[in-house]
């Protein structure tokens, strides 16, 4: 239900943008919202492969996200599951879909982060809030222990 879509144009070929998104070398250069460093970048960009990225922000906080590549079509499409390590930011699994289209000036990138909050919300309709909450707590506790 809840999703976020961003569209950007980049003055580079789709193959360059695609590799920047799907290789550890590329990810290390841009992942994270401010100029803080990427500490760990791992990527195995094929269907069923996994990625993991840990970054530090300028305020000193560290965040890690990881997931599985659900679909990889070079140089036009990447779909991956997404979860924050430890669940501090958001304990739910969500989905990131990146579509690249060749345009005259380079690449148009359409970036969609979807299924935000959907897991628990969908479940809550079936089980009521208590069931969902218990699951959420169990999940969160497991994440904390890891």
């Amino acid at each position, binding site marked *: 239900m809840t999703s976020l879509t961003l569209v950007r144009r980049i003055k*580079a070929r789709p193959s*360059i*943008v695609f590799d920047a998104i799907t290789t550890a070398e590329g990810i290390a250069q841009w992942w994270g*919202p401010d100029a803080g460093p990427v500490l760990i970048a791992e990527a195995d960009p094929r269907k069923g492969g996994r990625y993991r990225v840990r970054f530090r922000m300028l305020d000193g906080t560290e965040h890690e996200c990881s997931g599985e590549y659900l679909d990889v079509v070079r140089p036009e499409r990447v779909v991956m599951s997404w979860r924050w390590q430890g669940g501090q930011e958001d*304990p739910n699994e969500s989905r990131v879909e990146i579509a690249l289209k060749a345009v005259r000036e380079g690449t148009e990138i359409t970036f969609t*982060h979807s299924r935000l909050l959907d897991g628990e919300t969908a479940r809550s309709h079936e089980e009521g809030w208590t069931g969902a*909450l218990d699951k959420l*707590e169990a999940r969160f*506790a497991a994440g904390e222990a890891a």
Partner: protein
Amino acid sequence: MSSGELFRNTIPQPNLTRLTTRREAPILSYMVNYQQRLDRTFAALVDPTRRAILAQLERKSSASVGELAQPFAIKLPAVLKHLSVLADAGLITRTKSGRTVTVRLRPQPMREAMAWLSRYERFWAGSLDRLAAYAERKEAEPRGKEK
């Protein structure tokens, strides 16, 4: 809000009443409760009748249950049920005075939900800026350097 506050300091004061019987560490209750509230807010907003009720309340500062029920082709008990869901999500308050129940909008959960989504937006907007800068730098490199 500065980007340094991303994922931090935006968690509002917790309402722990639902969780006080549980034994997990306070921070856990805090976070779980925050997620629970977000879940409730989004779940409450899924229903078009409930959104219409909120829209009505946005136009007036307050309304009676009867006034709120008037535009809908559903029976009063159904409207009351929707109002309960909205109240549980903290999106409205109900005040009883004599026989009249006055309903008011409570915008805080909506703001919280928007703040939650906007943190993701800031994360990706910032990352995409850097991605663009990096890819454009790579594109500008002499071709000979590429494999």
